[in-house]
């Protein structure tokens, strides 16, 4: 064993149980949401702690995406409260959620297809631009300085996600896996406190999944971003996340460390199906 390995400390991998002192970033209390007679979410409570990777899983139609939509203000629950950074949140619009540090990606890629990777990620900086329309059109003085600073930040993200080669490529021409990466880049451009990922690995092959997992871990560790993700690939969920919440038919059926959740009879039943 050489001197270096002897002294090596294994880098902190996601730990099974988060330390209790981690502060709660977002808290969902008894939230219910229905569309007409359809109950999408029934009486759900859970929390997301600062700095963790939190997975939301469940069979199709379990209400996962609805849950994300509630968190980022796209849907407004009929019942229950959402506490964001210690304050009970009033009804808000998605862009208000965004300006408070919640960014997300979508299940089906929602990029500007005709724009380049660079411009797409740059669009993630919109909320951080302070010069008014007039200055930006002139592209002069403070507006230009501001744009240069934002471009620098965007280049950091391009470097981070290793997409330099497609910087100037219109995203519509890119393969799906790369589009997903660009979308992650756009969300990162907002420098969010909480990042919501809706099926970041859907439709990817194994290699792309491995890359994406790596990026998610790196985002979490390098930037300290809290991440809530929906994912169907159980291997990925179990490897990545600190805690998992399981939904089925709009109800919460389990919540805890990946191993705990995996062992829960209710979860197994929900996935494999039981005769009712």
């Amino acid at each position, binding site marked *: 064993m050489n001197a270096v390995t002897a002294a090596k400390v294994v880098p902190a991998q996601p730990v099974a149980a988060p330390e209790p002192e981690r502060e709660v970033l977002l808290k969902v209390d008894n939230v219910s949401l229905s569309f007409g007679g359809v109950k999408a979410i029934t009486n759900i409570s859970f929390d997301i702690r600062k700095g963790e990777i939190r997975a939301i899983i469940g069979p199709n139609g379990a209400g996962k995406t609805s849950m994300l939509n509630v968190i980022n203000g796209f849907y407004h629950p009929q019942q229950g409260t959402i506490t964001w950074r210690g304050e009970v949140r009033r009804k808000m619009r998605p862009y208000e959620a965004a300006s408070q540090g919640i960014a997300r990606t979508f299940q089906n890629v929602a990029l500007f297809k005709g724009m380049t990777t660079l411009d797409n990620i740059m669009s993630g900086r919109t909320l951080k631009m302070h010069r008014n329309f007039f200055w930006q059109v002139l592209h002069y003085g403070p507006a230009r300085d501001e744009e240069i600073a934002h471009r620098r930040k965007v280049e950091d993200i391009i470097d981070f996600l290793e997409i330099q080669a497609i910087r100037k490529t219109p995203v519509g021409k890119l393969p799906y896996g790369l589009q997903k990466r660009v979308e992650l880049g756009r969300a990162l451009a907002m420098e969010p406190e909480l990042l919501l990922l809706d099926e970041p690995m859907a439709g990817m092959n194994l290699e792309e999944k491995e890359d994406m997992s790596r990026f998610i871990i790196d985002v979490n560790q*390098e930037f300290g971003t809290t991440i809530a993700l929906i994912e169907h690939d159980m291997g990925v969920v179990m490897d990545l996340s600190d805690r998992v919440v399981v939904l089925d038919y709009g109800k919460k059926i389990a919540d805890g460390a990946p191993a705990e959740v995996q062992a829960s009879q209710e979860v197994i039943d929900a996935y494999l199906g039981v005769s009712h």
Partner: protein
Amino acid sequence: MARLANVAGGDVDTFPKILLRNARDLGERTAMREKDYGIWQSWTWAGVLEETRAFSLGLRQLGLTAGDKVAIVGANRPHLYWSMVAAQALGAIPVPVYADSVAEEMSYVLSHAEVRFAIVEDQEQVDKLLSMEDLTSLKHIVYDEPRGLRDYDHTHLSHFPAVQDMGRAVLAKDAGAAAAWENGFAAQKGSDIAVMLYTSGTTGRPKGVMLSFDNLVISARNGNEFDRLDETEEVLAYLPMAWIGDHVFSLAQAYTAGYCVNCPESLETVDLDRLEIAPTYFFAPPRVFESMLTRILVRMEDASRLKKKMFDFFMDVARRSGEKILNGENVPFTDRLLYSLGEIMVYGPLKNRIGFTRLKVGYTAGEAIGPEIFRFYRSLGLNLKQLYGQTEASVYITLQPDGEIYGDTVGKPAPQVELKIADNGEVLYRSPGVFVAYYKNEEATRATKTEDGWVLTGDAGFIADNGHLKIIDRAKDVGKLNDGALFAPKYIENKLKFFPNIKEAVAFGNGQDFATVFINIDLTSVGSWAERNNVNYASYQELAANPDVYAMIQDHVDQVNRDLAGEPMMAGSQIRRFLILHKELDADDGELTRTQKVRRSFIADRYAPLIEALYDGSTSRHVRTEVTFEDGRTGIIEGTVEIRDLTPHAPRHQLQEAAE
């Protein structure tokens, strides 16, 4: 030019000394660029000196001393290039290793070299080194890219800028530190070991080639002089740093000529970066030129009809007279006029697209390049040339001088290189670039380098009438026919493989009366021919047995024979009989190596009945062959293979024609 003489001369015989001189004489010229955050960041020679000095002093603080080996692992980055000279300034020896080699192989090299320090690119390499349990000599790792390494224990691990800060702290505290650092290497001699490069070695373990400053500096200066390279050149550093070619082009020649080295943003952006930099001096293995040409042709297929017509017309003109114009030969006035027009309409924009607008000299080496591909670039007015080199020679053995380009030779001996051919046909050379020895491998050194400094290349070749060296094969593969004629299988196979319709060829003849070949047709190329000519086929086997296909291949083989007839050494080994194999040679069946090289002896055993048929005069043979499918199942292919005869051509002794 006056400046070049200044740069090339003097008693500055080591890279740290050359760096001092460049910082003094070329201080404000750009020495290095790297594309980072979408912008080309640049450093002047004075800047490089400052950066290198700070890092070097930081390394000293960490305990690096003279004689230590320092591993350099990663892609082409300015920090890694500076690391090499920073280590040399302390009398330590850099050992660049291939970043993509697997942990086990890298572990062998690093243990063998007894490296004490490692300068690496990123987390991947750090993890790889940390996993090497038996690498007991390693004391400290410095990394360039901090991502993912934040939570690692930093007792024996440092970030590159942190090491530089340590060096700068020394400089700030002690006013005499810079001078003391310079004095530290003032006494170094040209004969000191500059670098150790491990050769990949097709057989056995890699060997550590020790090269002295003299080896590299003199070879680099000779190379600069040969192609008139000076401080205005721009090169793109994109080939592995552990490879001698990159070491000489991106470090030795850059330092001695004082030109600028550009590091691409990432491996995937090399094409784009080349376009932005437009290098004046460029090296690439044949496959790079091949894929570039394919991309151009594919794009032309998609172009509008007018553009396609224009392209075809002017490429015709270029083919007719482009190379002659480049070589300074006489060309009819109308062609000269058309060529100038073509330069505006087609060649210029095309060269711009591939980043060759400013190209002064381009080199290709490593393998034989297809004559069509070679000629394509030359006809555009690009001075693409071939060279023949080895790690043991500090690259240069032979070079093609301007205006003396023959597709089938590798050129004349480089400046100060002596060449001779041994009785068995093996090429030997002696030059100032000849390596000192293999590290800790007396036996291999003795087997490769003679007492009086001649090095055995392991390649067989001969010197043609025009004084150019022609490499025919690996020396151990070269055999003789029964009538004593030289038989070089790879030479024949390569000639055949230059035809797009022929994918693979295996030549036989050692100890036989005449030469014969197995041929694999190229399914893509012949398949597209079949489609155009309404030839139906269900499988490779059926297409391979088609009489029209046979006729087509026979033409190709005959053409190769005509070529061989024009070469005095080769005329005797013309192909007398050939057959098209009923199945494609495949690595899964053990017929090819994983890198797609033919395993000749294995094939000879496996298809012994076919070889027998080639030599017993029969016109066809029924064969059964077991094959392994991709999923591991096995099956049987059987069929009757036809054998065709060819009449050899009378030998001609005109080299010029052979080159055509």
